[in-house]
């Protein structure tokens, strides 16, 4: 029964996927002009060449034909088209971008869930305690602070410490020895790297392990920022849920018949309260990608969003479509997973 549900659910995704990609295709093609416009003013390129270029990229054909061809090549070969500006297959162009963004987003996703549950449970169990008030206050702050502003503040903070740390590095002594392993680059006075994804000068000489450590250092600040926003909203949701279930009759019954407090909280209340968290997996992923987007700009992280903005500006149709397709697919996978998971943890949900 579960299998037939899964299959039906997958089949249902197809029209949604087609609708979403078609909508995106139409929107992008509705923008005035096309990719070849930038060459129209170039004296070295004559109109005939322009026309040939249009033909080569099939830009002279009706939009729906272009869409059908594009979709067919995805279905048939998994080929997302050719990038106009890179003159390379879209798959090859966006693969590293998606990977880069995912390294940022997935770490944040895992951290968000790992942190949400204990914080929200604590906050709900000790409602109105000092800790709960601090959590509530912080989650409001986390909701209200714009991502790009938060990362700017963190960077400013790191740079604020820079002169002091440089001095420490120059002076040496015990302070220096303590600080060196827990800072990213003491000689330059940086606790954390403030931009980019890797230490570019030395990356060639690094071993695999060193590259990993280097990446982790670069991930710290953006991950903190991206996690904060999603954590803040999830904690508020889960706390509200927990409060409701802690007051529910079946929880009181469980406590009355002698279930230890831990069991009451985790087995009876939390188990039920988790539902919206699970059904939110699908929407959390794209919202994290979006939230990470502006952060990627500020710290020059070579991810999806900066590339998307550049491609939109250059009217590089298939890069835009490729990135949209990948994120739409991710979103659908997320929604699908959350539905299936919800069925697994909530026995009240029946597949039929």
């Amino acid at each position, binding site marked *: 029964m579960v299998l037939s*549900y899964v299959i*039906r*659910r997958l089949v*249902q995704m197809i*029209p*949604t996927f087609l*609708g*979403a990609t078609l*909508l*995106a295709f139409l929107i*992008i093609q*509705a*923008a005035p002009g096309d990719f070849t416009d930038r060459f129209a003013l170039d004296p070295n390129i004559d109109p005939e060449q322009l026309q040939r270029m249009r033909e080569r990229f099939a830009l002279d054909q009706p939009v729906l034909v272009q869409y059908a061809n594009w979709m067919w090549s995805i279905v048939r070969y998994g080929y997302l088209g050719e990038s106009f500006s890179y003159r390379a297959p879209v798959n090859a162009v966006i693969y590293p971008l998606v990977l880069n963004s995912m390294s940022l987003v997935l770490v944040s996703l895992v951290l968000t869930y790992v942190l949400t549950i204990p914080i929200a449970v604590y906050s709900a169990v000790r409602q109105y305690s000092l800790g709960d008030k601090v959590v509530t206050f912080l989650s*409001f*702050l986390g*909701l*209200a*602070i*714009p*991502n*790009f*502003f938060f990362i*700017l*503040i963190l*960077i*400013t903070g790191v*740079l604020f410490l820079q002169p002091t740390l440089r001095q420490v590095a120059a002076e040496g002594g015990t302070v220096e020895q303590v600080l060196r392993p827990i800072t990213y680059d003491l000689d330059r006075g940086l606790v954390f790297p403030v931009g980019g994804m890797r230490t570019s000068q030395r990356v060639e000489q690094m071993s695999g392990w060193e590259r990993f450590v280097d990446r982790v250092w670069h991930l710290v600040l953006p991950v903190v920022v991206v996690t904060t926003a999603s954590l803040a*909203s*999830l904690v*508020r*949701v889960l*706390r*509200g849920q927990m409060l*409701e279930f802690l007051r529910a009759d079946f929880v009181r019954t469980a406590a009355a018949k002698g279930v230890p407090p831990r069991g009451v909280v985790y087995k009876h209340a939390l188990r*039920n309260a988790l*539902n*919206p968290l699970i*059904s*939110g997996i699908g*929407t*959390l992923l794209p919202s994290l*990608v*979006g939230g990470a*987007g*502006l952060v990627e700009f*500020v710290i020059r992280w070579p991810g999806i969003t900066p590339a*998307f*903005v550049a491609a*939109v500006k250059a009217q590089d149709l298939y890069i835009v479509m490729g990135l*949209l397709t990948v*994120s*739409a697919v991710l*979103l*659908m996978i997320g929604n699908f997973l959350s*539905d299936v998971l919800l069925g697994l943890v909530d026995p*009240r*949900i*029946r*597949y*039929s």
Partner: protein
Amino acid sequence: MAGMQQPPPTPTGQPLGGPVPGAPVPGAPPKATPLGTSHASIVRSQFRKHRLAMFSLFLLALLYAGALFADFIAPYGEGQSFRRGEMNRSYAPPTTIYWTDPETGRLTRPFVYPVVPSRDVQTLRVTYVEDRASPTPIRFFVQGPAYVPPPLSLVPVGIRNQLGWNWRVSTHLFGVEAPATIYLWGADQFGRDVFGRILFGARISLTIGIMASLIALVLGLLLGGIAGYLGGVLDDVLMRLVEVFATIPSLFLLLALRALFPIEINPTAIFVVLVTILGFISWGPIARVVRGLALSLREEEYVQAARALGARQARVLLRHVLPGTAAYAIVAFSLLIPSFILTEAGLSFLGLGISEPASSWGLMLAVAQEGGIQTFTQRPWMLLPGLFIFIAVLAFNFLGDGLRDALDPKLRT
């Protein structure tokens, strides 16, 4: 989640993020209340009890007043820059205001010293030295750049020009005589007053959210109401459409739609474009909740009665079904506004929103960042617009929370 059979939705099974919807409880008072209290007065007294929400309301009123009277409060015009020669005030720090006489040490009328730019030969940085010889008093109600005063300034420029309504005044709340300059919160790289530009920026940052939320709300109420109340094919089509919209990440949808319009257009046009786009991509979640509410409301006896009396479908929908969603609508509205404020700030930060010389808080941060992140430690005042985004969003969130508690006591958390 089509295809799943779930127990009837309780207020617990709600989607994450966004406003938490809930079934309205028409006529159910939140507490035992004395006889003769109207629903409205219960809501009001409940709202007043939420101190944070009340404070937020006050704070927002203050911000909106600042935006409305920006021309009057700010000592300089929105685009007025100081960047040449002796009057170069690029990145001038906040002006120190002196309250005591330097000789006698007695309290005196506040004054400032003019500053003289001097370039450090080694670092090439411009520093500002106070010229102690000529103290300049701060004057109130001084003449400055002319502007169109408030009630009239709410009329769009195009209409104003056509009608010839362009009376101007040039009184400013405070100011100092040149060559002295007064920057309460420092200057940006063009020597423009950050304090003033934050007030001017508030006009765009604070109205864009309200306008876009209104569009999203009207669309969401109408389409959701139609889908839920009429049902049938229309319902299927609309809900599929919502699903399709939800499949494209909203940031990307926003960026793609923004590309339909040229980057460099005049601020009014950009404003309209942004409001429309934001409104049009955000009605989906509202429509979905309203549809659910309409589904249950149409079974209510008063709705059945209205239909039995022969009211037209449109009338039943508008007069009987949709009012039942008011509690949800108000809360959703107040919680959508801050998310749009954040989005506008982000777009302007990317250079795709409001463009120079107009100002918005996001744009000011973008301009600040262009000066180099490395230098924020030397001019932290450039980060102030971010603080204002933060305060406005926080206040709207608290306001929404307070409204929800007052209107929809079931959802109190």
